[in-house]
Structures are given as structure tokens and as C-alpha cells.
């Protein structure tokens, strides 16, 4: 998928040097973080089933670590290894650390209850090593933060990683006594990102057992959507939101999971996303979907698609889905995974036709709701017909506006070239005070159309370059970097869209468009 490609390219472009083995080591996994994890388990793993076997092998491997609690070190080293493999090129301490402790992640599965590892011990043992490589694991998003050495930052990053990974990789990593970490890092977290991660870490401080299950399932599942999220130019707030949702999900699951992993997980797991999905960004839902779907796959319990069936309903009704959860427990497992399975709600017809109809109707109503948000003034209107009326009117009015503006631009067109030359020397003062908005070509060059505070240097360089035949991506990108008002999210989106996957596509499309503009020659 394009998003995965984005994500992968972002990894490369952001300078995080993944080892080449990353791609080769992963047998059939299609997601970057997934393969990354597979790598760390020392075996190429295609699916979670293999993952389990790798885990068991790890469990059996002896732990040769001296220091205080083997558990703590095991898991901490695990994380360190994870990060170490990631950042093998960058950080020297990581290599030092890795060589020191070969492979002792044994206790992962052996003692899930003892998750109160004193990461403090572990941290004290491997000073800058483990925490630092760890920071790379979450992905390019945390990449810029990795530049600072030091224990405090490492600890902060470790907590961040723990916080994040409990959403993505495993509850197991989250267990890393985020309580401990957060204590240490709270005083040291230098950046807002860490603060958010720390906050999440704190939310996970109580974590009962059964995290091995979580890990198996979550690693596959959530890392995927997280990858896509990262690829889409994530923002820290959204990530922390997602992580809190995951935290609540996992906590709900594990809290109710004391013996009935099968049923309780599904029910509570579904309820948690229900409550949280309302408050979290919609991207969260897909993450829950994937995680739930994946949770069922390796476990081979009730058909994983059963959860997928509930997902279309999660955001709509809490109660019916809850009831569906109960129904789910009694249904037999097994179902092809590419189907969306629908549960009959209480008091509703259960034949195939009506169920299919209901699914379609809900799809349609979901889209209508989306449109309702898009079109202003549609909130008060009820009923499909009237709402469609409003939508049609809105589309027509927009099209009329486009026509009117195009007429206006047509009259202005002959002045365009003239204006370009005049704009160059004047844009500086113009953009400052005279014009309500920055000058248009300057807008294109810089990113400051929303900032109203153009930087003269950037402006000049950009405008001069923009007056040439073609805008070069480089200049735009440099302007992007210079401008402070832009969040890196938009930057990422911008660099993603034109430069990465769509290079060839863009050129071709541009030539297509140009031929449509009435030119005689066809550039190839």
C-alpha cells in the first residue's frame, strides 16, 4: 500500500539507518515495523504463529545476565536489542551494550506476572546503551529526538518507547514499569513529545499478566496501523491519544482477562475501543480494528473477522455492540478473514438478506454523516432527502464560484506576467503590511501563507526561483525547512506527496495536464 511505502521511505529519508537485514530478514511480512520486530526475534517471521515459536525459543534460551533481577534485565535488554538493531550505525554505546549482554530475554514469557521489573537496575547497568537505541524503535517520528546522548534523555526515550510500544509492540514492553521510568524521566523530559509519552507510560503502570498474549497479538496488529499512522505524518498529540486508547484497551483487556482470555478479551476489548473511539481521532478505530483482528488470528479462537464485523458498528452504538460481544462468545469460530461478519442484534431479523442490507445501509448512513460534517449548515437538517438537497445546492454553488473566479482570473491573466516582475522587489514590503495576505507567488514558494510573517531571505530566494519555468522541489523543501510556522506533520505530508512515491506519477500527470491545457507540444 502506498502508506507503507511512504513509511518505509520516510525511514530512509529521515536518516534512520535501518540495517539492510531488515528487509531481507522479514520473510513475508508486509509492514516495516513488523519486520523490524521479526528481526529482533532472531528469526524471520511471517506471521504471528512463527512469532510465538520464536518467543518460546527465546524463553528457553538461558539468561546470562548477572545483575539484580534477571527479569528486569531481560526485558530491558530486549528493548535495548530492539533499538540496537535499529540504530546499529548511529550510536556507539548501543553496540557496546549489545556486545555486553548477548541474549537474555528469557524471562519474557517465563514470568509475566513479575513485570514489575526494576528498570532502574537495568538502566543503571547499561548506561547510555539500552535507552538510546530504544528510541529509534518507535520510528522516524521520534527520530529527531535521538540526537542527544545521555542517560536522562535515554530514560525519557525509554519511557516514551515503553509507552508507545505498549500500544504497538506489546503490553510487555509497556510493563517496563513505566511507573519507574516516568518517575525518572518526568524530571528530565526535555521535550513535549517525551512528556506525552511519559503521560502515557504513567497510564500503564498497572499491568497484570497475560501480556505475552498481548504482545503476540499486538505486535502484529498495532504496529501496522501505527506504521501507517507514522507514515501519514503523525503528530504527537494524536499519537498520545492513540496510545491512551490502547492503554485503556489493553488495561481493560488484561484486567478482565484473568483466566478467560478468550471471551473476556473480545468483549472488553471491544468495549474499550467503543468508549475511546468516540473521543479519539478516527484513525484510532482502524488501529483497533487491526489489533482486534490480529488478536484473533494467532490465537485461533473465534474468527478474527468477527471483531472486524463489530468495528463498523463500534462508532455508532455502544449497546448493540456490547450485546454483540456477548453473542460472539457463543458463536463458533472459523471464518474467512476477508469477510465482514455481521452479528444480528437483539430483536432484529437474522436472515442473510436483511443483514446484508443493514450493512449497506449503515455504510450509506456513515457516508451521509461524513458529508453532513463537510457541508456547512447540514446539521439541523434531518432526513436523507433534505440533506441531499443541501449537498446538491452546496456543490452547485461551489461550482458556480469556481466559474466566476475563473472568469475573473481570465481577465487578470494578461497581467500575470507583468505582475510577476513587479512582485519581486515589492513582495517584501507588500507581504509585511500593505497586503492583507502575502503575495501569491511568495505563498507558493514559502509555506508562510498562514503565518503572515515571511522571512525575507526565504522570500527572495523562493520568489526568484519561482519565477523560473518550473518550481523546483528543492527550493520548496528548503523553504519548508526554514519556515518555523509549519508543523512537521505538514512537512512530512508535503515531502511525502510529491517527492517520494509519486515522482514519476507526478511528471506523467503533469504532462497529461499540460496537454489538456491547449498546448500543441506534448512533453514526454
Amino acid at each position, binding site marked *: 500500500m502506498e502508506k507503507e511505502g511512504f513509511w518505509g521511505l520516510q525511514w530512509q529519508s529521515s536518516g534512520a539507518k535501518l540495517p539492510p537485514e531488515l528487509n531481507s530478514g522479514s520473510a513475508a511480512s508486509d509492514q516495516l515495523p513488523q519486520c523490524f520486530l521479526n528481526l529482533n526475534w532472531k528469526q524471520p517471521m511471517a506471521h504471528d504463529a512463527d512469532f510465538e515459536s520464536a518467543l518460546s525459543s527465546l524463553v528457553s534460551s538461558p539468561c546470562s545476565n548477572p545483575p539484580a533481577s534477571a527479569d528486569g534485565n531481560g526485558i530491558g535488554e530486549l528493548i535495548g536489542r530492539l533499538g540496537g538493531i535499529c540504530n546499529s550505525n548511529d550510536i556507539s554505546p548501543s553496540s557496546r551494550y549489545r556486545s555486553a549482554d548477548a541474549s537474555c530475554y528469557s524471562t519474557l514469557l517465563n514470568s509475566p506476572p513479575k513485570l514489575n521489573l526494576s528498570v532502574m537496575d537495568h538502566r543503571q547497568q547499561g548506561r547510555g546503551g539500552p535507552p538510546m537505541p530504544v528510541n529509534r524503535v518507535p520510528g522516524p517520528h521520534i527520530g529527531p529526538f535521538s540526537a542527544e546522548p545521555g542517560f536522562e534523555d535515554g530514560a525519557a526515550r525509554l519511557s516514551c518507547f515503553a509507552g508507545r510500544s505498549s500500544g504497538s509492540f506489546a503490553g510487555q514492553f509497556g510493563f517496563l514499569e513505566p511507573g519507574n521510568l516516568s518517575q525518572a524521566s518526568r524530571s528530565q523530559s526535555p521535550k513535549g513529545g517525551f512528556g506525552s509519552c511519559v503521560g502515557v507510560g504513567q497510564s500503564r503502570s498497572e499491568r497484570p499478566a497475560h501480556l505475552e498474549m498481548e504482545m503476540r497479538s499486538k505486535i502484529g496488529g498495532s504496529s501496522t496501523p501505527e506504521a501507517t499512522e507514522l507514515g501519514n505524518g503523525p503528530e504527537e498529540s494524536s499519537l498520545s491519544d492513540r496510545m491512551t486508547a490502547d492503554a485503556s484497551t489493553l488495561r481493560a483487556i488484561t484486567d478482565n482477562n484473568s483466566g478467560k482470555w478468550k471471551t473476556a478479551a473480545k468483549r472488553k476489548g471491544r468495549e474499550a475501543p467503543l468508549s475511546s473511539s468516540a473521543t479519539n481521532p478516527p484513525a484510532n*478505530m*482502524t488501529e483497533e480494528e487491526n489489533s482486534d483482528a490480529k488478536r484473533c488470528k494467532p490465537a485461533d479462537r473465534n474468527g478474527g*473477522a468477527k471483531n*472486524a464485523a463489530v468495528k463498523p458498528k463500534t462508532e455508532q452504538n455502544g449497546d448493540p455492540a456490547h450485546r454483540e460481544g456477548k453473542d460472539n462468545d457463543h458463536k463458533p469460530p472459523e*471464518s*474467512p478473514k476477508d*469477510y*465482514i*461478519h455481521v452479528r444480528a442484534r437483539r430483536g432484529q431479523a*437474522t436472515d442473510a438478506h436483511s*443483514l*446484508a442490507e443493514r*450493512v*449497506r445501509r449503515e*455504510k*450509506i448512513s456513515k457516508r451521509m454523516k*461524513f*458529508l453532513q460534517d*463537510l457541508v456547512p449548515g447540514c446539521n439541523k437538517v434531518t432526513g*436523507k*432527502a433534505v440533506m*441531499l*438537497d443541501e449537498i*446538491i445546492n452546496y*456543490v*452547485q454553488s*461551489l*461550482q458556480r464560484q*469556481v*466559474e466566476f473566479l*475563473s472568469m*475573473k*482570473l481570465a481577465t*487578470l491573466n494578461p497581467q*500575470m506576467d507583468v*505582475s510577476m516582475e513587479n*512582485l519581486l522587489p515589492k513582495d517584501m514590503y*507588500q507581504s509585511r503590511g500593505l*497586503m492583507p*495576505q502575502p503575495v*501569491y*507567488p511568495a*505563498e*507558493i514558494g514559502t*509555506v508562510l*501563507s*498562514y503565518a503572515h510573517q515571511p522571512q525575507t531571505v526565504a522570500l527572495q530566494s523562493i520568489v526568484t526561483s519561482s519565477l523560473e519555468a*518550473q518550481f523546483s522541489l528543492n527550493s*520548496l523543501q528548503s523553504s519548508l525547512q526554514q519556515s518555523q510556522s509549519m508543523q512537521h506533520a*505538514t*512537512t512530512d505530508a508535503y515531502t511525502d*506527496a510529491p517527492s517520494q512515491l509519486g515522482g514519476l506519477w507526478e511528471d*506523467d*500527470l*503533469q504532462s*497529461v*495536464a499540460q496537454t*489538456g*491545457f*491547449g498546448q500543441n507540444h506534448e512533453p514526454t
Partner: protein
Amino acid sequence: MISASSSSASSSRKKKMKQAESKWRTAAQERIYRRRLLEALRATASGAGPRAVKEAADSALALTARGQSQWSRAILLGRCRPRRKLLLKAGGKVRRGRRRPRPAAPVPVAAAAPAPAGKKVRDRLRVLGRLVPGCRQLSAPNLLEEAADYVAALEMQVKAMRALADALSAASLNAAAAGEAESNVV
């Protein structure tokens, strides 16, 4: 257990739907579009008329959509036939023979939804299908999705074109004023 035979791709569509709005609202997309719009406008012959400008603007908009939506592919295809292969490769969902004269009679939308099928609703869905380029024979849920994308794109287009028109007119005013000042001085 009853299964509706929607593939898991619908989950990706849900994601797409949620992101459609945010995708068009980002500043980055607007920047991209403005750049393309400017290029397109420069490419049009001056004095070609408002219709050419509108077509240029629409093509730039469809370009910015990167062929991921039905209407954008329809616009781009409509402009230029020999490049259909490119768009097929990119979008993958273009149907052949779209240029064939469609039956003018009101063809019911494919997979007509019985639930939204009040007569009024169906009529309006048809009208909407005619409004959105290239979406006449779409089923109800797809049509609504395309409409949402199209509405967001149109909003961005209007915003960008208005900004461009304002900037150009202001610039020309300044030029005129400067010219006058110079002439007065002289």
C-alpha cells in the same frame, strides 16, 4: 454466522473516508495545488477565455488528487485520451468506454439501495451523480464518498483561486499606482 461479502478493503475505504477531509484541508495540499494552478494558468494561452481557465483549474485540482478518486480520474481522462494508460496504472479503477454516449434515460444507480430508496432520495442521488464528474453510474455509498471528496476539493479550489485572484488584482493595482506615481514624477 452470516457474512456480507464486502472485502476487507472496505476498512481501508473507511480510513480513506476519514482522511478525505483532512487530506484536502492540509496546508501542504493547498500549496501543491497552488503551484499546479499557477503552472496551469501560465500554460494557457492568454486571452483564451474563462472556460480555458476553468478547465485548467479543474485539471490542476484533479492532478492534486493524484487520481485516487473517481472524479479526478474522470476529469483527467476527459482532457486527454492517449494518456489513459497512465491513469489506469495509477488509479486502476477506470472503466473503459466511459466516453460512450450514456443512455439519457434515468438509469437507476447500480446496486440501488432499497433503504435510501425513497423516490426522492434516489432522484437526488442521481442529480448528485450528474454534478460530480464521472460519477453518474456509481452506487450510493461510493457516490457519497466521491461527493465528499469532491466537495472538499472544490472548497480548496475556491479558496486558492480566490487568493490568486486577489493577489493578482492587488499586484496589478500596485503596478498601476507605481506607474502613475512614476509618470507623475516625470
